[in-house]
């Protein structure tokens, strides 16, 4: 990277390993004094070739790879992917599984927003809020551990449902979380919302008009902060989201401060949904969490060990995979960062012919240069945090 000829500008590398990049990404900043003249993001450090790998794995085997896209809310990626495969198969998971999927998605959304706000604050220098928020995130991870047996890489969903139900001790802890999390969010708001330093560092930084945000392909909290009330949970409901009560917070200026406010309100709205999920689970009562079609989902272990038929199904499913119809689908879900899309092309056979992930932060990050041009380095740090760039899904 060479500075523009004849200029007195200086090149500064932010990353690939820098405390504020939270992941591995590299930004080349061209500076005139402390003013950014040009920012060139250089991505791909975390490129694992997920899409290429997907062409050689069965549909079921791809689920663990989705954990590693947005690793702050891996459960939501699991849900997004299985919803896409189910669309291709034209099947629906049982009602209990749908509620559990909504429940874990919203918990993951809360966790993701907590991390985003906490990290954004800590990068700017507000360390205290970060500690308060990470205490709550710890509880969310405990809940994930109970659900999926894993804290980070959950792989909780299966095609046609979930791999198991939640244990009995889940509910009391979740109730406890529903009690403590709003208080933590209030505490965080007391620390940040009216804090003049926080306001100075975030208001007007990274401001974007609604029209420009749409042109850049923004989705999720960053688009809503710019004033566009676009949320797939309302606009194109899936998993029965239309039957839950919640509101869509919308900002006005699209700056880092508005993104913070939108995320804060979304945490509260997600808590409302979690509350409704718990009530619904009680209403529905125990039941299957995966469809009983043994051409798609594995039969229960007791049956595999005792019945010939089930053993054959198990063998066929593991060795030959699911009989997929030929066709192509694009399925999108509202992930914490925005629209998470999966484009699947099937030509029959056990592996997809082509699998493509549309990560929400990829188009958002592409606008980085425009967002920071003419501003100081410290603003670049604030913008990067407000965008919530997760290198895992950015590079795939």
């Amino acid at each position: 990277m060479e500075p523009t000829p004849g200029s007195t500008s200086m090149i500064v590398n932010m990353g690939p390993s820098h405390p504020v990049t939270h992941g591995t990404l590299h930004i080349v900043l061209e500076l005139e004094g402390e003013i950014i003249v040009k920012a060139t993001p250089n991505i791909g450090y975390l490129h694992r070739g997920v899409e290429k790998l997907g062409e050689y794995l069965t549909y079921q085997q791809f689920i663990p790879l989705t954990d590693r896209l947005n690793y702050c809310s891996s459960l939501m990626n699991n849900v997004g992917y299985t919803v896409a495969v189910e669309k291709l198969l034209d099947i629906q998971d049982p009602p209990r599984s749908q509620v559990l999927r909504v429940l874990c998605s919203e918990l993951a959304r809360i966790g993701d927003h907590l991390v985003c706000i906490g990290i954004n604050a800590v990068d700017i220098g507000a360390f205290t809020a970060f500690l308060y928020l990470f205490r709550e995130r710890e509880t969310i991870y405990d809940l994930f551990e109970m659900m999926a047996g894993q804290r980070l890489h959950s792989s909780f969903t299966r095609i046609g449902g979930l791999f198991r139900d939640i244990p009995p001790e889940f509910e009391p802890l979740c109730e406890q979380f529903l009690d403590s999390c709003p208080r933590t969010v209030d505490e965080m708001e007391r620390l940040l919302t009216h804090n003049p330093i926080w306001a100075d560092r975030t208001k007007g930084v990274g401001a974007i008009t609604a029209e420009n945000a749409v042109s850049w392909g923004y989705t999720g909290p960053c688009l809503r902060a710019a004033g566009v009330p676009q949320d797939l949970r309302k606009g194109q409901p899936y998993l029965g989201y239309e039957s839950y009560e919640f509101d869509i917070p919308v900002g006005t200026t699209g700056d880092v401060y508005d993104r913070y406010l939108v995320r804060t309100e979304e945490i509260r709205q997600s808590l409302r949904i979690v509350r409704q999920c718990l009530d619904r689970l009680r209403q529905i009562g125990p039941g299957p969490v995966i469809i009983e079609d043994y051409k798609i989902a594995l039969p229960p272990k007791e049956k595999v060990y005792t019945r010939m038929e089930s053993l054959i199904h198990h063998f066929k499913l593991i060795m030959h995979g699911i009989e997929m119809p030929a066709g192509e689908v694009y399925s999108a879900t509202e992930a914490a960062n925005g629209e998470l899309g999966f484009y699947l092309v099937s030509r029959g056979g056990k592996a997809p012919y082509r699998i493509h992930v549309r990560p929400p932060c990829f188009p958002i990050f592409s606008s980085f240069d425009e967002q920071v041009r003419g501003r100081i380095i410290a603003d670049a740090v604030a913008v990067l945090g407000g965008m919530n760039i997760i290198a895992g899904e950015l590079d795939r």
Partner: protein
Amino acid sequence: MVIERIEAKLPGAILDRHAFRGDATITVSGPRFLEVVDFIFAEGFQLLLDVTAVDQGPAAGSGGACGETPEYRFEVVYHLLNLVNQERLRIKVPVADGASQPSLTGRFKSADWAEREVYDLFGIPFEGHPNLTRLLMWEDFPGHPLRKDFPLDGGDVFCSQDIGASFDPEARSLNA
């Protein structure tokens, strides 16, 4: 439906259409692609969500060995969303190996990186793109990884050579 309006306004532009599982899809011929995009942009499809491609296999377009060889090797796939009525549209454009595709960077800012990614992973050039360089792979990376004839292990697992590494055409494939 927007597809009917395209057909009424630009007859002959749509080569093929289908709606598998409710996904409205049209195949548009390359030369008329920009016309169609201009029209649907005015119709409200202003969020270009994604640009990607599908490789039909190296045999496609060259007459090939198998009977059902598609005429073109690549399909560039665009996903668009109408924010007002939440309608989605998928546009596919057939592109031959070595041919280029007009860039949408003048219309959508999100096309910038998305097209760079397709160029990087498939080797499809986009005409009119202001900065068509590799995005995810490094500059002198040999080949385009998402092409079907690119081996899964990269051909040069230990990165011992730059170009012309061991190449195994019999690479494991579940699709074969």
